[in-house]
């Protein structure tokens, strides 16, 4: 059992358990905290893959931006209480059932597809350094230049939308 595998197991355990706790903790603030840990562990997975840039971006975006947003919202609404009522039993059963179904189906799909075992060959070529990613992203000819620009537009629109939506309406009430 190599070190890498051990790290993987530890990280996976952390990821799954914190994700689980996120769902199950009664207090939303706790959920948020667990989620942050979960995100960090996923960043750890990225690092394991040697995708440093992605890991950094992930921490900045998720643990930084998104989590802060979530926390702010939680605080804005003053929701750090454990007052959530459980859903009816039938709904919960349904949820369990459908989750199991999804899980089973997904797993069976992946396992039944082409054999995924094999040699993990390494060409030695650099494919995930910042330099290469930058080229792939911004190359005009066979890269993702236009989608990239669109993403920026999307973010802009989302920003405007968020501002508009959360602005208090003057006319009403």
């Amino acid at each position: 059992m190599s070190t890498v595998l051990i790290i993987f197991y530890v990280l996976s355990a952390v990821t799954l358990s914190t994700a689980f706790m996120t769902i199950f903790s009664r207090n939303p603030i706790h959920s948020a905290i667990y989620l942050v840990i979960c995100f960090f562990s996923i960043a750890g997975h990225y690092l394991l893959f040697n995708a440093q840039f992605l890991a950094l971006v992930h921490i900045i975006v998720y643990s930084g931006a998104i989590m802060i947003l979530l926390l702010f919202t939680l605080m804005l609404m003053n929701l750090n209480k454990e007052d959530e009522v459980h859903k009816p039993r039938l709904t919960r059963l349904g949820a369990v059932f459908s989750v199991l179904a999804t899980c089973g189906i997904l797993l069976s799909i992946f396992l039944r597809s082409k054999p995924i075992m094999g040699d993990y060959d390494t060409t030695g070529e650099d494919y995930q350094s910042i330099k290469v990613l930058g080229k792939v992203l911004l190359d005009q000819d066979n890269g993702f230049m236009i989608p990239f620009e669109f993403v920026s537009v999307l973010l802009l629109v989302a920003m405007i939308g968020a501002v508009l939506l959360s602005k208090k309406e003057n006319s009403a009430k």
Partner: protein
Amino acid sequence: MDTTLALVLILAPLFGFLLNIFFGKQLGKTLSGAIGTFTVIVSFAVTLYFFLNITETNQAIQVKLFDWIAISDFKVDFGFLLDHLSLLWLMFVTGIGALIHLYSISYMHDDENMHKFFAYLNLFVFFMISLVIGSNLLIMFIGWEGVGLCSYLLIGFWYKNQDFNDAAKKAFIMNRIGDLGLLVGIFIVGFVFKTIDFAELKTIVLAGTMNNEMWITIAAIALFIGAAGKSAQIPLYTWLPDAMAGPTPVSALIHAATMVTAGIFMITRLYFLFDLAPLVQDAIAIIGAITSLVAATIALVQTDIKKVLAYSTVSQLGLMFLALGMGAYEIAVFHVITHAFFKACLFLGSGSVIHALHNEQDMRKMGGLRKAMPITFITMLLSSLAISGIFPLAGFWSKDEILMTAFHGNPVLWVIGSLASIFTAFYMFRLMFLTFFNDFRGTEEQKKHLHESPALITFPLIVLAILATVGGLISLPGNSWLNHYLAPFFPNKEHIAHALGQTEYILMAIATVGALVGIGVAYAKYMKQNQVPGADATFTGISKVLYNKYYVDEIYDAIFVKPINALSNFFRDFVEVGLSAFVFGFGKVANELSFQGKKLQTGSIGFYLFIFVIGFCAIISYLFIEL
């Protein structure tokens, strides 16, 4: 010239109709009556001209006006055919028509709608003329249905009484059953012979090239159904007695003398077809004989004076059909003519009586009118003798010819016909005795007003009585003017002249004795014993059945009218509703689906998500899992 005159002949009554219907009210009663009468007299005069002409030249006149209906197989002209038969028919149609118009001037004088009455009468004459002189079956059909229409209008002339309207409706519908038969007959004739023109048909058939026996038989059956409808034969006779709801002149003109003989006219017109269908001829003879007997038995017990005459008419028409079935067409024609004379006279006479008694038609409330109404009495007596077949009045000759022919053809039919004749003599004199002899049985009020009718009424009576007396002269056995006259019309027929042998004299004697017996029984019963039929409820046994006309109306009601109405109700209340519900069912299903679908939209996001996940699972398992 001939065309113009023919147009005058047919259009004069139409002109009278138009004048009376549009301006009748302004013209006043007398003038509108005069116009009505005059137009018919004009027609009569023109007919007389043509008639005298044809007796000299022996040439039928054909008038073609224009193409009427386009059919792929044959063409239908709008044209007239004035030949021996149609002119003979026209003579008594317009002649008697004119007399009855004259009679109506006085008879209808008290009615506020007198101008309409004359308008309808004129319209009737117009249609009757076109029936008679139509050059092909369809023109005849115009007249055929047209007289039915006028009959409807005139039976229901007093339209405020719904019973009368029912009678009118019944007459029209029963006629229409026959008309459908006639129409099918026309189809077959057109289909088989590629023409429906009388003259062409006659040429084709007499040439003998067409020998399509089956179709001709079917055609003959269909045509006979038409004739049975119009001429009130079994099973379509029940409308005629009901038709007596109309004013009496109408009964005389339409339901005794002219319209009801249209069936006989049509069969005579197409005799060449019927000659080719001996089976149908036999059927006609049998049906005619039975009709004559059945109607005569019903007439035995009727108490309404017009009903007696109506059944008598049906009975006489049956005799005519008997003659037709024997192939003795000219004898049938002869009887039609004599019958027109004496039956018109009888109806008009009964009208005179009814008029005098202020619309009383029940013979139980008459009696002893002989002294008050001598002219009416004498003319009716003569006509009754004529219809009973007493030598030497008109009815004797014509009826005897029929019975003789029947005897030679089939003695059973002769027996039936003779029985009917004996009954005829009985019920006619029952009518005479009940009406004119013994004491008056009506109210005092009526008694005071008893009077002879005015001259306008008695004049036609006298003329008709004279004709009923001497009318037989036109066809005396052995030397028949009528047969001679009609010979060009029956080019292929041997003269049926009964040589006056021993058998014939015996038959005549039997017939006369039979008639005398009938009269004698009536005399004994109603004169000697002074019997009067009791109220309706007192009839028992056979006479009850007879009085209720063998319950034929009730049977028809139960077999046809009620089921059709029940079916109609069923269709209206169930089938229509069901069909409608079925169509609405589609809408209902869609509605129901959407209603149920609406419930799916619970608004609960959790539920949506649940469904979403399930759907996601389903889709990916469908896409990726190969089972």
